[in-house]
């Protein structure tokens, strides 16, 4: 990575952590609403189905990445699509990660202000988060991954234990035998749910740094499975504590679910504050990963400017862009657009690449793929 550090070497466990930390961020606070709007009581099935779609997309990504085991997507974009279209795709990747960070940070700031710091300006919350983002990102990918490794398991364990408290007051009558309304509602809720799985596409960027490439698919799919189970647990939680009618009318259904927790009357009075404390590290890892990936994408596209300079440039840009939307609803339209780009980059884009690879190989423009399991 151009003198910033030694070449990164991502182990299968680290890849699992990286994927999990990137996927689970701010989206899950809102996700049950989107899933339940159409699938209602069957929303947990939609979540599992979306996870399966994500694994399918991951399989496509690894198929492409395996053809170029020592290159990042920025290198083979130009090889496959030519320098102009390839560079445009590279810029698209950079912008996608940039706007993912922007939307994520603004949503995080809105939640923190609304539930925790009502008198603190959003600008201050965003600025504070951005400053702590730059610190670990400054020295490259490996410190970020180590941070994921050290923080995520404990955070996840605590957050699951926290939500189990909500299950104590569950109304199991809210559950329904699946497929009573057929499969159409489950499938129609898929687009809103699948956004919450975005993040695993970073494999396009970091595949060359994975030490055991033969295990890349397995590690990342395990991460997606873990995310799917976590999401299903949350959707089920909102269903049995709030019910579908309340869930679909809440701005942040998972935060509302936390408000149902009462450990001992008047002892833990506002449990949602605990949730926010536990959730912030999850949001932080997502912002960190996407912010770094954005700088990394631009650096790989325009290598004359060092990675750290790209971070310095992107930092105020994220700050300014995240303050443009008027309110949370406006921000959500931004998020939906970013999600659409994400969907393009995870499903049609690898398919197009696979077609290009086949065509280019037939034309003799590409050599045969290298063997799997190469250690970089």
């Amino acid at each position, binding site marked *: 990575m151009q003198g910033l550090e030694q070449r990164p070497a991502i182990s299968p466990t680290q890849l699992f952590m990286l994927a999990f930390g990137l996927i689970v961020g701010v989206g899950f606070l809102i996700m049950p609403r989107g899933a339940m709007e159409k699938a209602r009581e069957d929303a947990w099935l939609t979540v599992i189905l979306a996870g399966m779609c994500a694994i399918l997309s991951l399989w496509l990504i690894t198929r492409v990445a395996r053809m170029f085991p020592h290159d990042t997507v920025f290198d083979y974009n130009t090889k496959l699509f030519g320098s102009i279209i390839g560079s445009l795709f590279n810029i698209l990747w950079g912008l996608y990660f940039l706007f993912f960070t922007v939307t994520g940070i603004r949503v995080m700031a809105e939640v923190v202000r*609304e539930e925790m710091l009502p008198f603190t300006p959003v600008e201050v919350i965003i600025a504070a988060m951005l400053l702590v983002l730059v610190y670990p990102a400054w020295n490259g990918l490996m410190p970020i991954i180590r941070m994921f490794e050290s923080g995520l398991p404990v955070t996840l364990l605590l957050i699951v234990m926290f939500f189990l408290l909500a299950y104590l007051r569950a*109304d199991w*009558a809210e559950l329904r035998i699946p497929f009573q309304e057929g499969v159409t509602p489950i499938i129609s809720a898929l687009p809103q749910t699948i956004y919450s799985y975005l993040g695993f596409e970073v494999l396009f960027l970091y595949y060359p740094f994975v030490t055991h490439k033969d295990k890349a698919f397995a590690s990342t799919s395990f991460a997606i499975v873990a995310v799917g189970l976590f999401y299903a647990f949350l959707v089920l939680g909102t269903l049995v504590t*709030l019910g579908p009618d309340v869930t679909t009318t809440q701005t942040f259904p998972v935060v509302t679910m936390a408000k149902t927790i*009462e450990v001992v009357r008047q002892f833990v009075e*506002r449990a949602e504050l605990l949730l926010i404390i536990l959730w912030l590290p999850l949001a932080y890892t997502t912002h960190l990963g996407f912010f770094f990936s954005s700088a990394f994408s631009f650096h790989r596209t325009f290598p004359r400017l060092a990675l750290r300079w790209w971070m310095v440039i992107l930092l105020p840009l994220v700050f300014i862009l995240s303050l443009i939307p008027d309110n949370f609803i406006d921000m959500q339209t931004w998020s939906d657009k970013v999600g659409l780009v994400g969907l393009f980059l995870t499903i049609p884009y690898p398919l197009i690449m696979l077609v290009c690879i086949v065509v280019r190989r037939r034309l003799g423009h590409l050599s045969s793929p290298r063997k799997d399991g190469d250690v970089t």
Partner: protein
Amino acid sequence: MTKRRRNWLAAVTVILFIGVLLAGCWDYRELEKRAIIVGIGVDELPPATSKGKKMRMYQVLVQVVEPAGAGGNMGAGGSTQATSRKAYTNIVITTPSFSEGIERIVSLSDRIPNMAHLQLIGVGETLAKNGINELYDFLTRLPQMRRHTEIIVLDGPVSRFFTTPSISQPSPALHMAEMAANVQRTLVMPESNLGVVSKSVRGHIPFILVTASLDENKNINMKQAAVFDRQKMVGTLSTDQMQDLSLLQNEIERGLLSFPCSGGKKTGLQVLAGRSRIEPAMRNGRPHVTFKLSLQTELIEYQCLGASFDKQEQIRKAERLYGAELKKRLITTANKLKDKYKVDVFRLTTRLKNYPDLYKAIRNDPKTFMEQMVVDVNVKLRIRTIGSSLETPSLKVNP
């Protein structure tokens, strides 16, 4: 400037910056400068006219705790009547808007209102009957609002409830909140707080709220409940009806079941655990719902003197007798409630989700569903313990 000095300067700047951020002094406010609201009482006043249109007007009473233990009663005009070291202050505001009313606390008491610790919402009967939709919107929109905040209906002038002193609690709002929670925790009353109200309103299901009233001695009691349909109070339930409804709704916690003996005396069974399941079916186009109740009880009082419980058959006999009595009572209450209100007070809408035909029928036309519904109850009552005494003393037996 040398590199070493530059680094030193940078380190000092960073430490100072972090110090400012972490110290928590920025926007810090003393507790005394915050108006921590523990209870609000709302009732409806005659409407005002604004631009030729009628506008709903409310009287909002806000109870603020006084951390120093000294306060006073502030009237609508903002005048303070100092009283001897009260732990709360009541502020009464007349307003068409709840948020505007609560914000006016700043001008009346120079403190910033904080609703994060609200324990009780008291709804006046006039407001309850006219509809709580505007109050509901305000309460559920507030991010600080807890879903366990108790909501009760106040049968009488709101201000009298919020000035009734309590021995155990520092303020009347906290006293009423604790009372309402205890009433719901026992068998007497199905759960009813902001969370349940929110769920019912969104699901278009009727809900029940505890009703507080004042007795002759001006003490607060909670012996009744109010039935709400479409956010309007449509009727009241007696203590017995509340208890029966709790059993049918599967809201069974510890509580006392009383059965009459001769001469007005009673047998008391303490509920240890229980469950109420439903067995619904559509027969000849009519919904049939069987409530299957299973209760574990403890005999705590037996005024029907002269009985002995030293044999298992005698316990079984008592179980059959009280089981049959309870069944009769529950069927009567269920029929009475469904015929009177014609709404789903039994929370069947949620419980019928796994019976598509019935669920569709109750969702589409709850009134017809309730009119046509045939209710049956099966009670399996078990006496698990009879206490320390095997035999009850009889007055007729000579010493």
